């Protein structure tokens, strides 16, 4: 049958593409269905202002698993990453912190705030890399299920326990602290200066609806030390051509294995036959059938939207509604006529090439969180900025630049409801620019175009429920065997024939590819039985 497949993938995000590539590589007949005119989901490059290519949503690459890059031969398909080496943090008092690959320069920069911290910093980096090395296998395999009585599961769990608990008391205790403490408390055990703690701690809050002082934010710090580019640890990078080129490379690889990829093919619903998913119905009414339907969209949209609550057992619907989405961030993309000039460090030095983190202090960031807790965007938000055009001239016209600003906090649920974002969008954009202008006053004069994405827009345009960039909060009760619902963390779902392959499954969000690849492995293993 012309419209019958081994697998249908709903959504053309990078995880679904990865899953499709692996399945196609194994000889399966697969089709990827993307609602928009381009693939990538939140991993897209979009020319919203002529000549300027925005990495509209996701903007840095680091966690994309190296084995996936190899398996899918991505460099051949245009995947190329430029490492980001500097992290620049200006402070309101005119000082700044600059951390980069030069250990001595970094030491001197930290020493202006604390000599002790400057000495401890490299030790911290080594300890974190070791911690990262110990737990890294967890993100490269399906999570063990502690509720299972299968001896293989118990064995796997014991193996994991030994990995974490068998390295001696000091490491075990470090793992537990890392997993449960707040970023500020965790870092305060090592460092004393707020000017170092605040910019380091922010990596713990990115994409989550928690503050720097909220328990459970420390472990995301570890992600920074687990990132790999070309096999080297703790690096973030920019994809040449914008993050969309990562998705395009995966798509190209998938096509080379025979996968079919259709854009402007929005799925209206999953086609059910009894309690079994047998295909999908497109928005234009077309029906496609397959032995497996694999969803690359988030759990809420998949089950409560595409499958429909009436097809779910009672308990499952409740569990899915409990699964927290909770968008907390927004994005502002700028087309610039010229580079920003920071008052504390004028000129266009290396500090502009890396990550620019506006994290002026712990209290300031906590206040930003407090605003969001009670239903408003942060009046003084946290900003994480990159200027990709400095490293990659292909994304802007000569002499011009694009700036990508990740903004937190922007709660999906404003006090007057999420639709109030339609009225608040520009005020939100203004708050972001005002905050940046405190440090780089010329910014207001060099903006050619401004593109503001609120959580509401992330939901409407990119299909992320509540604008959550990770398809569900990465909080402890939503990780590993509990993600997305307890007992269904192995990419299969309680709906027969339906699988999950994206960030809503283990190991979660970011441009990692792991959920997609692990889902494909699970599908193939099941098929082989």
């Amino acid at each position, binding site marked *: 049958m012309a419209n019958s497949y081994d697998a249908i993938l709903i959504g053309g995000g990078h995880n679904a593409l990865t899953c499709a590539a692996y399945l196609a590589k194994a000889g399966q007949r697969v089709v990827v269905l993307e609602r928009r005119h381009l693939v990538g989901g939140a991993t897209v490059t979009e020319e919203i202002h002529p000549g300027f290519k925005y990495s509209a949503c996701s903007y840095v690459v680091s966690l994309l698993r190296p084995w996936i890059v190899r398996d899918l031969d991505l460099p051949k398909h245009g995947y190329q990453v430029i490492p980001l080496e500097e992290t620049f943090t200006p402070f309101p008092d005119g000082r700044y912190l600059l951390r980069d690959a030069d250990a001595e320069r970094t030491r001197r920069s930290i020493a202006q705030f604390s000599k002790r911290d400057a000495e401890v910093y490299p030790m911290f980096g080594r300890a974190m890399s070791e911690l990262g090395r110990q737990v890294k296998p967890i993100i490269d395999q399906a999570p063990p299920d502690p509720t299972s009585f299968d001896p293989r599961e118990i064995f796997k769990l014991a193996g994991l326990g030994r990995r974490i608990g068998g390295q001696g008391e000091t490491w*075990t*205790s470090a793992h537990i602290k890392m997993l449960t403490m707040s970023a500020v408390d965790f870092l305060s055990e090592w460092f004393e200066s707020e000017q170092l703690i605040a910019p380091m701690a922010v990596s713990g809050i990115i994409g989550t609806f928690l503050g720097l002082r909220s328990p459970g934010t420390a472990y995301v710090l570890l992600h920074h030390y687990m990132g790999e580019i070309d096999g080297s640890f703790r690096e973030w990078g920019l994809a040449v051509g914008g993050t969309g080129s990562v998705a395009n490379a995966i798509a190209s690889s998938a096509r080379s294995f025979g996968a079919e990829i259709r854009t402007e093919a929005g799925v209206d619903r999953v086609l059910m036959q009894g309690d079994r998913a047998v295909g999908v119905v497109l928005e234009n009414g077309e029906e496609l059938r397959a032995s497996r339907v694999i969803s690359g969209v988030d759990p809420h949209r998949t089950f409560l939207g595409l499958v429909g609550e009436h097809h779910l057992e009672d308990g499952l619907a409740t569990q899915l509604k409990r699964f927290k989405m909770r968008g907390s961030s927004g994005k502002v993309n700028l087309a610039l006529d010229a580079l920003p000039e920071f008052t504390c460090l004028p000129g266009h030095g290396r500090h502009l090439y890396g990550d620019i983190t506006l994290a002026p202090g712990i209290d300031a960031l906590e206040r930003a969180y407090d605003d969001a807790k009670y239903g408003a965007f942060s009046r003084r938000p946290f900003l994480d900025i990159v200027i990709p055009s400095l490293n990659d001239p292909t994304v802007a016209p000569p002499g011009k630049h694009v700036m990508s600003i990740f903004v937190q906090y922007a709660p999906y649920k404003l006090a007057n409801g999420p639709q109030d974002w339609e009225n608040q969008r520009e005020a939100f954009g203004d708050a972001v620019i005002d905050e940046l202008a405190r440090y780089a006053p010329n910014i207001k004069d060099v903006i050619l175009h401004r593109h503001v994405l609120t959580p509401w827009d992330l939901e409407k345009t990119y299909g992320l429920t509540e604008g959550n960039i990770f398809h569900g909060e990465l909080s402890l009760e939503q990780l590993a065997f509990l993600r997305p619902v307890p007992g269904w963390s192995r990419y299969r779902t309680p709906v027969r024939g339906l699988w999950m392959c994206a960030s809503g499954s283990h190991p979660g969000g970011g441009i990692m590819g792991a959920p997609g690849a692990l889902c494909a492995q699970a599908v193939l293993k099941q098929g082989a039985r």
Partner: protein
Amino acid sequence: MSFDALVIGGGHNGLVAALKLARAGRRIAVFEARGVAGGLCARREFHPGYRVPGLWHDTAGLRSKIVDELGLAAHGLTFRAAEPSVLAVTDAGPGALLSPDDVAGVSARDASAYAEWRAFIGRVRGFVRSVLDSPPPPMDVSSLSSLWQLARRGLALRRLGRDDMIELMRVAPMCVADWLNESFESQVLCGALALPGVQSTFMGPWSPGSAINLLFAECAADRSVTGGPAALIDALLAACEERGVVVRTGTPVTRIRTANGCIAGITTADGEDVDAPIVAASCDPKRTMLELLAPCQLPLEVEESLRVVRTRGTTAAIHLALDGPLEFRDREGVAIECARISGGSLDELERAFDAVKYRRFSERPALDVRVPTLEDPSLAPEGHQVVSILASFVPREVDGGWDDTQREALGAAVVERLAAAAPSVRDRIVARAVWTPEDLEADYGLTGGHLQHGEHALDQLLFMRPAPSCAHYRTPVKGLFLCGSGSHPGGGITGQPGALAAKEIVVGHGS
């Protein structure tokens, strides 16, 4: 006179440990810095003629097994026949009345949700208590015996059945707000239920890890002691006397002495040396290990792991003497013994927490209110009442430092909060006493003014409490044991840290 073991601190855990050791045939002396034994459970006259039966006021966590084992009933300890209901106070309306069995004053949907929520607590209680009532599980999994211990606990967890097991693992790291919001629609109910999850912590209801505190508190709660904390101390002291335990009050210990890496004894503030091969310290672990212990006795990493224990006090105590009853709005003439005022919603409770992040006390603090005179009228002159309040959140360090002006402002904020729910209270106040965390530190010797001797947070519980090297009551110094709230299962009136430490001492040294 020589002793087999010395106990530092005459709080309820110190006395439990002392008594248990004495019953095992040891000669024991207890050293208490304050003029009276009991620590936070000691009776206190805060104004002539007006007393509270302890600074803590909830005794429902006291383990009846310990009471039986120590024969405290023979010394007058009895449990109350029925637990007092808790009034969940709102700024408007009569609020809700909570008891372990049901809730009144909320929607039918919430009433049935409450029954279901309590039923879940009931189903997991046995397992949770077994965790709280045994020494923490081992951290090191390299030996067979520790693997066996872990496996046994794993099996016990599995015996809950798949659904409850998963639910317990899911809930433990959650924030209390999410957990409660999943079940209830009434914010008054949520706000009141959440308070024990965040009290004495540096967490608000939206902080992950607060749910486990509530879960532990709910699972531990049983029957209250007649006469409150002070009655427990009375019984413990009587039993100690019978067993020949020497209790020396007004005798601060200034040094824990060692010789050749082993415990040699203690030195008191008067310069007196008392020798013994074992010292069990019920004061907080930081004070014990970093201040009282002679310097350079600990490996550096152990010292560091104790230095980072978080002991940020966030609770103040306020006592009121009233010349008439405490009457809540819309409930005039009804005697309410317990009330929780958390602003009527989780968000209000969260706002109360926000203040401590910025080194301020909450201007609308959350109050845990008790009227002990309703049970024991002898605490005040006839017809008068005393009100004992634990107020959250109040930081140990306020901007500008604590002084009388700040202290009075805190007292006024607490009274205002109470008066919003009980308007007549203002006119009935005879006296008011305020203890900030700084006062609590100075008076009771609590590092950071922390009532629990260290925050109950996910990384400071079980085998992490207070630090991995001394989580099993032993310390790296031979003969030095920890037996207070800083050890598993933690703070509050349970008697468990004292009892488990004594057991460890007896087993470790032959009985």
